[in-house]
């Protein structure tokens, strides 16, 4: 119990001499005491610059309204001890809301000192609570500030990311678009050369020419697919209810190989889905196209399509099962990437963007795509899309 303001004992006595005598009596016990002359002075010290009050019963009674008010305005952690010296037979009213200790006169000095020391010890615990609360509040504020700063940084990064994505998509669209003009020229002049000068070329010359045409054509297909991907990635999207069974039938009509009897079986009913018709058509077209393409030589492609509800019931899963060459599990992730094709173009033609387009389109429609497959055992692709209510 040092010299600090908040550890002082306030003494309020009828006269200055009484106060001084009391203080002297307590002086041996290393208590810091200060005599208050006025009530106002007392009340102003209670909040932050005193540990306890020692006073006379008569004064306590006379000042109880003012004192009571000062005590009521304490912060939650504070329970200011009030030690009241009474007269025998005094009529001090019970003040249950005060932290009051009544000490009867005549009193022994040891009694007074022990009561004062106890009061000061209590007060010290209160100070510890006060400091802990202060630290807690400060920590909370720091946390809130850190959170705010973090959120701000996240928002800035997200915005930068969004802008970068938009730039990249615009770039890829422009590049793909601008690549097609020179490609047209390469193909066109190779064709013109073949038409006008074929007879002046030997076999090898003609072969070289057809390789030029073939490459240009292949490049054009890849550029068209990248364009399709860009369009789906950045294009406007409006979802509406779609009858996927009808949509699949339309796609099948445009594929001569699929149109063959028995090649595509739809196990109805298929649920109505919330989708973008053009994008969904592209997905179905790419999936069916793959099913037809990736079969063992001599094998007739067969695709079965069915659907099931996905828990918790907002989405439905549409399965596309084929009898093709299958895909090894280590390739399941890669096939959905742009140019992520596994087989060389010698074995199977294609641009390597078809499944990337499927995944992007499905994602933009709020769904997911996946597959189960093993080498040699066919593949089961699935699209998970929202059901139309």
């Amino acid at each position, binding site marked *: 119990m040092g010299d600090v303001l908040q550890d002082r004992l306030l003494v309020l006595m009828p006269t200055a001499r009484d106060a001084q005598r009391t203080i002297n009596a307590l002086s041996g016990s290393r208590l810091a005491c200060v005599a208050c002359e006025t009530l106002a002075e007392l009340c102003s010290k209670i909040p932050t610059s005193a540990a306890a009050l020692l006073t006379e019963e008569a004064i306590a009674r006379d000042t109880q309204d003012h004192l009571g008010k000062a005590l009521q305005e304490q912060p939650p952690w504070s329970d200011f001890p009030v030690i009241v010296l009474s007269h025998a037979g005094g009529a001090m009213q019970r003040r249950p809301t005060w932290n009051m200790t009544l000490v009867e006169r005549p009193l022994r000095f040891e009694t007074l000192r022990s009561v004062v020391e106890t009061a000061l010890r209590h007060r010290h615990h209160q100070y510890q609570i006060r400091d802990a609360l202060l630290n807690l509040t400060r920590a909370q504020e720091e946390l809130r500030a850190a959170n705010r700063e973090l959120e701000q940084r996240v928002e800035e990064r997200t915005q930068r990311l969004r802008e970068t994505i938009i730039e990249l998509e615009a770039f890829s669209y422009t590049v793909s678009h601008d690549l097609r003009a020179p490609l047209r020229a390469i193909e066109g002049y190779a064709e013109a050369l073949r038409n006008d000068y074929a007879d002046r070329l030997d076999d090898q010359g003609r072969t070289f020419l057809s390789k030029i045409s073939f490459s240009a054509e292949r490049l*054009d297909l890849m550029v068209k697919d990248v364009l399709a991907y860009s369009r789906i990635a950045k294009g406007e999207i409006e979802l509406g209810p779609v009858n996927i069974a009808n949509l699949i039938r339309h796609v099948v009509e445009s594929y001569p190989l699929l149109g063959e009897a028995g090649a595509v079986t739809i196990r109805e009913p298929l649920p109505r889905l919330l989708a973008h018709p053009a994008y969904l058509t592209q997905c179905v077209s790419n999936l069916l196209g793959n099913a037809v393409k990736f079969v063992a030589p001599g094998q007739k492609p067969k695709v079965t399509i069915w659907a099931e509800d996905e828990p918790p019931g907002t989405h439905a899963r549409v399965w596309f099962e084929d009898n093709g060459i299958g895909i090894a599990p280590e390739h399941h992730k890669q096939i959905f990437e742009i140019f992520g094709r596994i087989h060389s173009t010698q074995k199977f033609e294609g641009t390597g963007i078809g499944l990337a387009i499927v995944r992007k389109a499905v994602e933009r429609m709020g769904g997911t795509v996946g597959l189960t497959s093993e080498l040699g055992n066919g593949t089961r692709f699935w699209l998970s899309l929202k059901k139309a209510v």
Partner: protein
Amino acid sequence: MNRSKTILLVEDSQDDVFFMQRALKEASITNPFFVVGNGQEAMDYLSGTAKFSDRSKYPMPGLIFLDLKLPLKRGLEVLSWLREQESLCNVVVVVLTSSQEPNDLREAYRLGANSYLLKPGSTAQLVELMKVVKAYWFESNLFFTVEGP
């Protein structure tokens, strides 16, 4: 028969002009055929000004193939201007471009294009397209002619 209908090609790419000429020939389109390389020249030709004032040398076209990406004045500007001219508002305009931008599609039709064609990727496809153009525009479609300036 509309074999006398003059065709005006508004196209800045020399390569595409070359391929169009061959394709028209392959498709047996023998109509008189003129080429301008930018939007301003297109407007000069159609209004019979600058070097195009002699209509006997530069007849009014019945059908215009209009590219959209042109230097000086863009294709859509030419189209917009053209439709505002009394004497030109009925000329058949077929947009022939590599752009599939929804904006371009919307604006082209809004400004009064009669048709919107994409430049095909191969010569063979271009020839097929020109054969279709011949069959539809020059052998089926009826033109409304107004003698131009």
